[in-house]
């Protein structure tokens, strides 16, 4: 292995040279001949009937080419934006989805929903045109509040009680019985605050239609261009799949918000054929706030049953999840299969029952956001566990320890469907306590108190399920797609390698990590590996990047293709050595045979593959290029222990994160530097949720936090110097032993921060975000 670039080395990222010198090629950097510009006209009302739309004045604006309304798309056979996962209710009925035309036709149902769009020669003309579009609305009563949505005005004609589904998981009777025997029950009413993703690059799309070849090309900011392509072809019916190429070039952050198929790219690619010219759209920041799918927004009642000695006996959770106005692409799976299934956490709780009611409101659609269901589950479990320890007068570390699933219990079947393959939770906890200088805490607390500050400490031991996911399992549960991944490893004549992956990098560093994997396994230089992603015209298929799946599923697919490359290389080498392929070994980039002292370097075999002089072509095809599809047999289960210490100024209510320790078990790690960066980013977002971020709609459904003046993103000075370390129990079911690291920080951190804050204040609960105002008021009320 090469110490600088092999598996386990912190190789510097290949992609950073272009990113930090402004050479990245993002969707908005791409310009094509004849390009026009598009601006969407968005509803100013949270709920209204569209009585009429006046496009005449917009058409009169100089430079405006066309103004389109939703009716034109409908008339042209453009379908609704679908939700790709059908969740089944307790009563056996499938979820109820409202019609979701890309461009609103009869009703608008959230502020920012597009009801027309203007295409013009210049962006300025398109903006002027959009301002000139006016509609006559009959304003209707808006439904905004998650907790009371089911008893509010009915939003969609076909959705009674504004309820998409009422889902359950686990054994209700066993759980009720556990509560009946319990010595102690801890209960919490929890609100998981709505978050707005805020990727640094806003969503964008550039659609063009080539009449000569009848093909469409869509550049867009998608985390999964193949899924975008299949949805646009099969469901929305913009174009036949074979005639549609979707390219996601460099993408500046996604966090889930760019998984989904949105109205804008649908409109742009469709309209490009109507006007016969390419159309570009790029959201401005205000549009991103209004129209990107938001995250979280749960209202939950959670109860934990315990014995007097702290043994966890049962867990009961009832959640209302806000879906927003429509079901976004994967929204239905987030508060169910990515949430309820995680309620065992790291513990051997024998009985668990989870109910989730998904409701509609007149707000932007809510879908997966970094962690997607798992941060909400961890928050429920870890807030409950910490609160229970306080109520029982136990050390929260000790309470966790006695309930951890022991290392000899793996594979461990939880009562909520998942089977954990491996883990060592006590090891992560021990390392975290050591790193956090747990023994020195009382002295630090005394020092804070001497300075007039309140110090508190909180823990969070999270589990997550990632590496999405075994296809047949998720298809059985209602998913509309399999969740395997594809890879193609194309060895060039000279021995360099081009890898086509169905994963997509929008900050994760795949060009580096995947190159490390290939270079390590083939023993070729890191710089000889070129990783291509994000283009349906270049890679076979792919399910994209979300749910921390790229290395576990995409990486495993590459590994599988590499197995095939090596196997074929051995066959070629066998002919050169005049032996059989089972006699050929491959290691450190050399094919060798015990009967020869002249091993063949990988590049020589590559050359021989394409200049096929030495082997019979009727037995062995020329060339050296292999494809693989990898379908995981289980989820992967990263887990970790986080410790947070806060220092609160009681005079201002300001919380300072004094210490943040994260010890994660991601199994094997390809590039520790990249993993550490992912953990840092995740924790920053988790601290953002805990202290700062809150998407708020006012009672009429206006987004009151629609800009950075009102929506607080974490900044460098809100964050401490993270202390990050790792333990490792390699995943047992994928060839690399990897688990995935993209979401862990955002999943584990909010509970750690809030456990620390409630400890410092000596109160049972504080709602997120714990802004200075909230904390100060809590101190004044003393509850």
């Amino acid at each position, binding site marked *: 292995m090469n110490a600088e670039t092999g598996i386990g080395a912190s190789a510097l990222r290949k992609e950073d040279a272009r990113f930090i010198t402004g050479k990245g090629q993002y969707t908005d950097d791409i310009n094509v001949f004849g390009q026009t510009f598009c601006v969407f006209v968005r509803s*100013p009302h949270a709920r209204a009937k569209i009585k009429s739309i006046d496009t005449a004045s917009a058409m009169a604006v100089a430079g405006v080419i066309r103004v389109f309304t939703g009716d034109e798309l409908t008339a042209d056979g453009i379908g609704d934006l679908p939700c790709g996962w059908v969740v089944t209710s307790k009563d056996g009925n499938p979820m109820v989805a409202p019609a979701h035309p890309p461009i609103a036709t009869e009703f608008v149902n959230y*502020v920012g929903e597009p009801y027309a769009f203007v295409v013009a020669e210049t962006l300025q003309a398109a903006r002027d045109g*959009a301002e000139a579009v006016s509609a006559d609305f009959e304003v209707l009563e808006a439904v905004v509040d998650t907790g009371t949505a089911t008893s509010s005005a009915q939003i969609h004609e076909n959705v009674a009680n504004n309820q998409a589904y009422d889902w359950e998981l686990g054994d209700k009777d066993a759980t009720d019985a556990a509560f009946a025997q319990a010595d102690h029950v801890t209960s919490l009413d929890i609100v998981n605050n709505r978050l707005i993703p805020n990727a640094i690059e806003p969503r964008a799309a550039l659609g063009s239609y080539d009449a000569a070849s009848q093909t469409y090309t869509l550049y867009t900011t998608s985390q999964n261009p193949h899924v975008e392509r299949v949805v646009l072809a099969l469901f929305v019916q913009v174009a036949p799949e074979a005639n549609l190429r979707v390219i996601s070039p460099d993408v500046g952050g996604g966090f889930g918000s760019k998984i989904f198929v949105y109205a804008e790219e649908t409109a742009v690619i469709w309209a490009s054929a109507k006007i016969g010219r390419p159309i570009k759209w790029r959201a401005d920041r205000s549009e991103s706030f*209004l129209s990107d799918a938001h995250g979280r927004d749960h209202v939950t009642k959670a109860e934990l049953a315990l014995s007097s000695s702290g043994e966890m006996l049962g867990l009961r959770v009832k959640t209302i999840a806000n879906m927003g106005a429509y079901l976004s692409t994967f929204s239905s799976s987030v508060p169910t299969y990515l949430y309820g299934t995680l309620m065992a956490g790291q513990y051997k709780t024998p009985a668990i029952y989870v109910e989730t009611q998904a409701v509609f409101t007149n707000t932007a659609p809510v879908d997966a956001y970094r962690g997607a269901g798992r941060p909400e589950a961890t928050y429920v479990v870890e807030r409950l566990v910490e609160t229970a320890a306080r109520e029982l007068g136990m050390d929260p570390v000790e309470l966790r320890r006695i309930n951890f699933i022991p290392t000899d219990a793996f594979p461990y079947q939880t009562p909520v469907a998942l089977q954990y393959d491996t883990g060592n939770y006590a090891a992560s906890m021990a390392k975290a306590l050591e790193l956090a200088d747990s023994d020195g805490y009382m002295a630090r607390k005394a020092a804070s108190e001497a300075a007039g500050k309140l110090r508190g400490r909180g823990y969070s031991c999270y589990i997550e399920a990632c590496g999405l996911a075994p296809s047949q399992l998720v298809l059985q549960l209602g998913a509309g797609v399999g969740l395997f991944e594809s890879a193609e490893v194309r060895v060039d004549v000279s021995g360099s390698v081009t890898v086509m992956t169905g994963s997509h990098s929008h900050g994760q560093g795949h060009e580096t990590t995947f190159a490390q994997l290939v270079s390590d396994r083939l023993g070729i230089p890191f710089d000889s590996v070129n990783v291509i992603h994000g283009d349906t015209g270049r890679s076979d298929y792919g399910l994209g990047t979300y749910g921390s799946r790229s290395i576990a599923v995409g990486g495993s697919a590459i590994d599988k293709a590499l197995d095939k490359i090596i196997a074929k290389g051995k066959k070629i080498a066998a002919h050169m050595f005049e032996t059989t392929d089972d006699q050929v070994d491959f290691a450190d980039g050399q094919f060798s045979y015990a009967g020869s002292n002249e091993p063949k370097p990988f590049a020589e075999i590559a050359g021989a593959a394409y200049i096929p002089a030495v082997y019979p072509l009727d037995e062995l095809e020329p060339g050296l290029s292999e494809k693989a599809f990898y379908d995981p047999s289980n989820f992967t289960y990263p887990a970790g222990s986080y410790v947070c210490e806060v220092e609160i100024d009681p005079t201002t209510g300001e919380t300072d994160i004094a210490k943040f320790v994260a010890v994660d078990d991601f199994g094997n790690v390809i590039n520790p530097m990249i993993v550490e960066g992912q953990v840092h980013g995740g924790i920053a977002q988790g601290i953002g949720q805990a202290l700062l971020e809150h998407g708020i709609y006012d009672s009429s459904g*206006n987004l*009151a936090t*629609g800009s950075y003046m009102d929506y607080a993103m974490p900044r460098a000075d809100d964050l401490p110097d993270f202390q990050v370390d790792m333990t490792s129990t390699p995943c047992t079911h994928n060839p690399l032993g990897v688990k995935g690291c993209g979401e862990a920080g955002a999943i584990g951190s909010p509970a750690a921060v809030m456990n620390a804050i409630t400890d410092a204040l000596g109160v049972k609960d504080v709602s997120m975000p714990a802004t200075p105002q909230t904390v100060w008021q809590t101190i004044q009320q003393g509850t």
Partner: protein
Amino acid sequence: MEEHGEFLIPASRNEVWRALQDPLVLKQCIDGCEQMTVINADEFECAVTVKIGPVKARFNGTISILEAVQPESYTLKVAAEGGAAGFGQGQAHVQLHETNEGTRLTYAVEGSIGGKLAQIGSRLIQSFSRKMARSFFESFSKQWVA
């Protein structure tokens, strides 16, 4: 959004009452008012250009006088459309009390906004409406100051 306040005006209650119904006076006292048209005795149309933080827009609105109890109190109902900038609506309840120094005018305003204004201006709107209301009644009471 809610806002209330009071002003002491050195004039009799009847004088103040009359001025409050006078479209010309109203036009002079509303910041940015470009036009004030009488529809009937209880209804005016106006065009006002306002700047709230980063949003500058011309609003077209109607002002209706409701629940008038001469010369003691009335309610002004305002509905305004600002195109792409958004829209607003509100009510101002005005009461006039006779005192030794003149007329004490008290007002209570409540209103709501929507559209772009609400998205990027929600934090500014409270101080804006306070400023707008104060400025109106200040200008209004200045008529009687020589």
